[in-house]
């Protein structure tokens, strides 16, 4: 009796490699950005020379009109060329993704073909076709058939994405081909992108994060690519969208800024404002490079960086930015750090370094859950201690609203897979965080205030949206800022920004946060700025909280204010540690 075992054919015949060279596309994009910069330079010059002092009359009027018109046209042309450049940048990024997919498919086909060859050999080697042997071989054949079918589907999908990427790029070029199109407000924007942005729920329409998420989920893959390419600023700042999407969009804008402003710098035509924007862009690039190359302390894998917010010209050049370390879309534990006064985009690399420290510490002493940490400078932090904005709390209140909105966006982007989320505020950022949790229903699980000059609107930890049991405070006894908050019967007058959250009446959990190198007197440097320093008590405890184990922090006694004297800090005389297991060890050295 003969037995038939149908071995599936190897398919597809071959994996078709996407055509195109990402590096060449990058070069083309840089050329376009440079060209856009040139158009901008002409527009800038026209704005400066359209009026000639002392020259009046018909000829002067005609000259002025013509110059202004030329300036406007060059500005419009710059915008269109810039959009096309961004389309090319996005195409290059897509091409890299597609190339990686292609490599994966090639590997899968090699593997499947190997299994097929082995199956054929095993069938031919059968000498006694018992029912069990035949069933086993048929099962392998069936499984192989299913895997080939899946490969064919994925290969078709790859080819479809290749075509869509090429179509999108072609549409971007075509939308700016004629002079009229190039000078139009939406020159270089493909029609599909315009149509999609007109739908309800689109970013920038006043839609809620949940509506923005629903809008995104209703788009096809080609439509998504189109809007990321055509409207990267709006997509990159849209609360409710996946962090990976915002990252893609923001990196397009970042590449544009670096290339366009870099070429203007080379030409010597950079204005002071543009100089600052370029410096901010370079900080973001450096920070992303650090985050992208950082290795997880346990697995050695690279969790990657995310450009979650990028607006380098905001707040009179201080900039708005958010850089993530790890995958905000999937991490079990997410931490958001809000910094304090004097922080601008100039500090992005340093704060991203602190987010790397926090990621490392959380994973190092963690329970194995995945982690993502985010430096969030989404508000206009006061410029200095003597900035009147520092004393008024207005920036903290505005920042609190923005922080709560951003966290709403994170929540909305993961409706079925909520992360354990910790909001950390440092210095004035702790007051900002307090406003978010006190007045704007911050949707965090835990709140950590470090180096706090006061808890803003909250008199008690119970006033926070997370509840008193989930409010933690770190205060180095030498921190000159953390003694400013009102405390006890005496109080300190109008110096602080609300109640001292480390005081015994506030009701938060205070954790050990003394720096081993602390000075004998209160100060700004080590005392106020070392809370996220490796192998410190503070970083150890914050890592535990971020990991979801706030109940395991090493608790410190609250500060208190005897009615007859100034406030006392029981931590003042305790000997701090560094690098001690269970207290302050946060990383391997090797």
């Amino acid at each position, binding site marked *: 009796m003969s037995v038939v075992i149908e071995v599936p054919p190897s398919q597809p015949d071959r994996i078709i490699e996407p055509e195109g060279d990402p590096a060449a596309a990058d070069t083309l994009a840089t050329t376009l950005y440079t060209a856009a910069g040139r158009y901008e330079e002409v527009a800038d010059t026209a704005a400066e020379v359209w009026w000639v002092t002392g020259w009046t009359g018909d000829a002067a009027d005609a000259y002025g009109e013509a110059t202004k018109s030329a300036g406007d046209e060059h500005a419009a042309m710059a915008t269109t060329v810039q959009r096309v450049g961004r389309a090319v940048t996005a195409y290059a990024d897509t091409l890299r993704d597609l190339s990686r997919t292609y490599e994966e498919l090639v590997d899968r086909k090699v593997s499947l073909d190997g299994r097929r060859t082995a199956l054929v050999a095993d069938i031919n080697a059968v000498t006694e076709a018992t029912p069990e042997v035949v069933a086993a071989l048929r099962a392998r054949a069936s499984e192989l058939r299913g895997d080939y079918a899946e490969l064919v589907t994925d290969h078709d999908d790859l080819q479809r994405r290749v075509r869509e990427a090429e179509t999108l790029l072609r549409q971007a070029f075509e939308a700016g081909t004629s002079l009229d199109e190039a000078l139009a407000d939406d020159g270089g924007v493909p029609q599909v992108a315009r149509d999609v942005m007109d739908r309800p729920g689109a970013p920038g329409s006043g839609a809620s994060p949940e509506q923005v998420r629903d809008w995104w989920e209703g788009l096809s893959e080609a439509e998504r690519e189109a809007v990321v390419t055509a409207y990267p600023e709006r997509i990159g700042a849209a609360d409710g969208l996946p962090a990976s999407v915002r990252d893609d969009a923001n990196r397009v804008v970042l590449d544009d800024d670096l290339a366009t402003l870099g070429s203007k710098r080379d030409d010597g035509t950079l204005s002071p404002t543009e100089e600052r924007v370029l410096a901010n862009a370079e900080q973001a690039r450096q920070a992303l490079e650090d985050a992208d190359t950082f290795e997880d302390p346990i697995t050695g894998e690279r969790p990657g960086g995310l450009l979650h917010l990028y607006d380098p010209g905001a707040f009179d050049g201080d900039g708005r930015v958010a850089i993530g370390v790890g995958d905000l879309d999937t991490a079990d534990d997410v931490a958001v750090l809000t910094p304090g006064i004097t922080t601008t985009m100039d*500090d992005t690399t340093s704060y991203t370094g602190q987010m790397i420290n926090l990621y490392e510490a959380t994973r190092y002493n963690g329970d194995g859950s995945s982690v993502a940490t985010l430096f969030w400078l989404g508000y206009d932090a006061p410029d200095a201690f003597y900035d009147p904005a520092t004393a008024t709390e207005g920036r903290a209140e505005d920042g609190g609203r923005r922080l709560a909105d951003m966290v709403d966006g994170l929540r909305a982007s993961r409706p079925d897979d909520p992360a354990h989320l910790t909001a950390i505020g440092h210095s004035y950022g702790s007051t900002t965080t307090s406003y978010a949790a006190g007045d704007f229903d911050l949707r965090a699980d835990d709140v950590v205030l470090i180096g706090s000059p006061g808890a803003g609107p909250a008199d008690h930890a119970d006033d926070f949206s997370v509840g008193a049991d989930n409010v933690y405070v770190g205060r180095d006894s030498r921190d000159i800022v953390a003694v400013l908050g009102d405390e006890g019967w005496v109080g*300190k007058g109008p110096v602080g920004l609300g109640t001292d959250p480390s005081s015994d009446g506030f009701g938060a959990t205070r954790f050990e946060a003394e720096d081993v190198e602390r000075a004998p007197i209160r100060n700004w440097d080590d005392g106020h700025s070392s809370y996220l*320093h490796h192998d410190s008590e503070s970083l150890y405890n914050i890592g535990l909280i971020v990991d979801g184990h706030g109940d395991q922090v090493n608790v410190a006694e609250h500060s208190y204010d005897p009615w007859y004297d100034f406030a006392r800090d029981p931590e003042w005389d305790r000997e701090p540690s560094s690098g001690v297991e269970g207290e302050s060890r946060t990383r391997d*050295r090797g």
Partner: protein
Amino acid sequence: MVRARLAAPILALALTALLGVTMSACGDPKVSPEEGAEATTASRAVVEDAVRSLADVAEGVGLDLRPLSGGWSVCTAEPPSLEYSAGGSAKPPGTTTEAIAALTEALETEGWTVENAGTEPRPYAVLVRDDLRASLGESRRHPGEVDAGVGGPCVDTTNEQDALLGETYDVS
């Protein structure tokens, strides 16, 4: 009571004056870019010398820590400061507890002083010499191995040193 009533405005004034003086440029770098560059170069050299010596000592107790690697991490964001540390890990001939104790003892003979040591919840030791800090413990990344390294002090920097953060150095 009188003292307390007076205390509030006096303290407020004193703190305001103090902060006005000490924090007028609180987030600014404390050094020039050139000073930052010199300080980071010097600190890295000192740490790498120390960690090579530590690795030599470790070899004497059966631990081959090489290859050694180093890198920078952030101490403070404002004002900016960085810390260089370097080290390696090795599988011990016996238990990690025994190896850490033996290496601790050997380092003490080389001029290091034990600042902290223990076995709970895992064996570890922290030793200091000048402004360097040696850290020994069980490796999290390589379970069953001893991790050992040296960290330098926090060094004041400027934005010009930011690029150091992404670098990894082969110290061997």
